[in-house]
């Protein structure tokens, strides 16, 4: 039932068909019942008239017969009564059953042995006298005309039946006044009416079915293009703008199709214009980065040649050459990061997963970062449950993430120790990098992964990071379907948690390490 209701809600065709069929049902019902009542009235009337005519002739015949034998012997009269009974109950064509009830006035119905005035009261067919309507009998007794009434008759040996009773006063010689009733069974009439009713019902249902079918055919014509439009619109959502609706006629549906296609065309051109713009933009960034590389290479080599001779210069030139080399380094890193960012923007960054061991990689990264920071004061502990953590990921990117997180921690650790945690589950692996240095304001947490964003703009750039490191790290993590979370509290340090699927590209099910560190009061 629920499914049906759902379908009704979701499908225009079902909705239209159901409402059409329901409305037609009402109309068919009304016309059908009107037709039926007219037909049945007619049938009843015809039946009544023919039955009454026959009854009249039967009564007349009986009266006539009895008149003829006025003054005859009892045996003749008895015979005549019997003949009358037989002739009156003769069944004519298209009659079902006819019974007679004869009752002498005044006496309750019983056999009398009085020979002088014999009682000819009788009934045929096992009629139950008690079910005779008293009302009718009153009327018959007090009237000289043929009286009739529809009634329900009980029989001694059969089922009750609806009947038409016609009655009249009759006089039998030497016996007295009688009520004579002819009881016409209405079975035939009822059967006719049933046939009519069935025929009407059948026609009604056939009509309903046909109306439903026609509605379906018509609705389909309208709904099909709508469905087509919906399917195409769905494809648009998926980024396929090449689809168009077929326009084959010039009706309203065709107008819809044309309008839809025009919208599609306009959308497509808009989007391709935007795509083009952004492609040009990204191409430009990428080209600039590439074009800068050749002169930078020359510069680097030149600076190295100068730097290698620095001992033979005077101190200002020596220092200048040192600065030159350092700044070229920084410039190169910036260029490298910019190029990487442009790859992410152009969505051409590709994942190249290989199997490797994570702990070893992290240890190597620690060594490198420590060496390049020329800082051996800060102690780093690494905490892992298992000796080896094998993962399948892009080793270059994971290394870059780790370097970025580590140098970030170094920059802000204020010479306090750095703590690294590695937790691996069946489906994912998490690396937490915790420092206890300056920390991060809550309001800054949401912006910490923004490009070129600095927690404190007035703070000097101690290590000369590019300002793109964390943003690239986040993109790298997401490329693996992983996540990079940050937690921080001013003065309490920061906690960066990298979560990666064990196999790059699969989904991560949760966070084995929560960004909020366990050493920090949980309810704050």
């Amino acid at each position, binding site marked *: 039932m629920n499914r049906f209701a759902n379908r009704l809600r979701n499908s225009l065709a079902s909705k239209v068909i159901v409402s059409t069929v329901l409305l037609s049902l009402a109309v068919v019902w009304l016309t059908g019942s009107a037709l039926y009542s007219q037909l049945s009235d007619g049938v009843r009337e015809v039946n009544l008239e023919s039955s009454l005519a026959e009854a009249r002739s039967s009564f007349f015949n009986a009266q006539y017969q009895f008149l003829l034998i006025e003054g005859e012997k009892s045996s003749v009269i008895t015979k005549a009564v019997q003949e009358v009974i037989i002739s009156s109950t003769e069944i004519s064509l298209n009659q079902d059953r006819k019974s007679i009830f004869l009752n002498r006035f005044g006496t309750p119905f019983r056999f009398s042995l009085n020979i002088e005035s014999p009682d000819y009261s009788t009934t045929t067919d096992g009629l139950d006298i008690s079910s005779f309507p008293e009302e009718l009998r009153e009327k018959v007794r007090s009237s000289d005309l043929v009286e009739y009434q529809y009634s329900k008759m009980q029989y001694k040996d059969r089922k009750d039946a609806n009947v038409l009773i016609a009655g009249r006063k009759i006089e039998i010689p030497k016996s007295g006044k009688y009520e004579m009733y002819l009881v016409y069974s209405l079975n035939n009439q009822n059967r006719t009416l049933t046939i009519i009713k069935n025929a009407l019902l059948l026609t009604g249902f056939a009509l309903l079915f046909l109306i439903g079918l026609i509605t379906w055919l018509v609705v389909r014509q309208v709904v099909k293009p709508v469905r087509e439009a919906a399917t195409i619109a769905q494809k648009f959502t998926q980024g396929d703008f090449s689809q168009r609706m077929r326009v084959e006629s010039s009706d309203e549906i065709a107008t819809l199709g044309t309008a839809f296609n025009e919208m599609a065309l306009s959308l497509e051109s808009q989007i391709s214009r935007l795509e083009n713009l952004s492609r040009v933009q990204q191409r430009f960034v990428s080209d600039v980065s590439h074009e800068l590389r*050749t002169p930078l290479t020359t510069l680097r080599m030149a600076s190295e*040649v100068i730097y290698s001779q620095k001992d033979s210069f005077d101190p200002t030139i020596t220092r200048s050459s040192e600065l030159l080399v350092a700044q070229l380094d920084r410039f190169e890193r910036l260029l490298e990061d910019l190029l990487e960012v442009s790859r992410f923007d152009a969505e051409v960054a590709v994942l190249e997963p*290989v199997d490797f061991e994570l702990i070893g990689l992290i240890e190597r990264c620690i060594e490198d970062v420590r060496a390049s920071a020329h800082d051996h004061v800060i102690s780093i502990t690494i905490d892992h449950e298992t000796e080896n953590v094998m993962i399948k990921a892009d080793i270059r990117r994971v*290394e870059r993430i780790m370097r970025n997180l580590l140098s970030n921690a170094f920059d802000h650790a204020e010479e306090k120790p750095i703590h690294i945690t590695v937790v691996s589950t069946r489906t994912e692996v998490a690396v937490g990098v915790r420092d206890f240095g300056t920390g991060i304001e809550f309001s800054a947490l949401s912006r910490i992964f923004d490009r070129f964003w600095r927690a404190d703009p007035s703070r000097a750039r101690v290590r000369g990071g590019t300002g793109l490191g964390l943003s690239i790290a986040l993109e790298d993590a997401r490329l693996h379907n992983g996540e990079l979370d940050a937690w921080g509290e001013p003065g309490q340090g920061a906690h960066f948690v990298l979560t990666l699927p064990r196999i790059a590209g699969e989904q991560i099910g949760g966070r084995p390490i929560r960004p909020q560190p366990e050493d920090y009061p949980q309810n704050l």
Partner: protein
Amino acid sequence: MTLVMVVDDDQDLAEMLGIVLTGAGIDVDLVSRGDEVLDVFRNNPPDLVLLDVMLPGLDGIEVCKLIRAESMVPIVMLSAKGDTNDIVKGLEAGADDYIVKPFRHPSELIARIRTRLRRTNADVMGLLTIGDLSIDVTAHEVSRGGRKIALTRLEFDLLVALAKEPGRVFTRDALLGEVWGYRHSTDTRLVNVHVQRLRSKVEHDPEHPEIIMTVRGVGYKAGVMGGS
């Protein structure tokens, strides 16, 4: 004196490369157009070619293929394009090494050039076999059943590095250090591409290698010799 042919259209960079290489005791032949390379190469065969990718006249990749068609001389590509696609394209054209501009230190460039020029595996002499391959280290020849297989010097070095210790698993990093002279790098694309190239030359079925086997998650090893 060793001779290195430097092919680069950027005059300043070429000059600078010349200064650095000369400073390291290497002779330099400068060429600035791709379509001039082959003539110079034939007239004065260098010991190593340092090749830029984007060149006027003829693309560096094409130049690389042309040189490879007639010589096994070490080729080091130098390019501003560092995407995997570009690197793989260069290596597949026959380059032994691929250096992305700007490289960190000139000394690194020199180190890598020297590694390519040096006879690596100088400690190994005589005849090695892996599987049904026989390697004559002294004569610098590889053959299977008497039939010679032509390998570049780098491919030969890679094969010998693996073959001299059959069964030992070499990580990609270790191979980078031993064969290419990298101090440290996690960029192992170089190794993967060259192993593929080498397999396509020495394996019966490169899809199911028997000479150079992959050790999942670690690196490569030479297949342990059969009964013979």
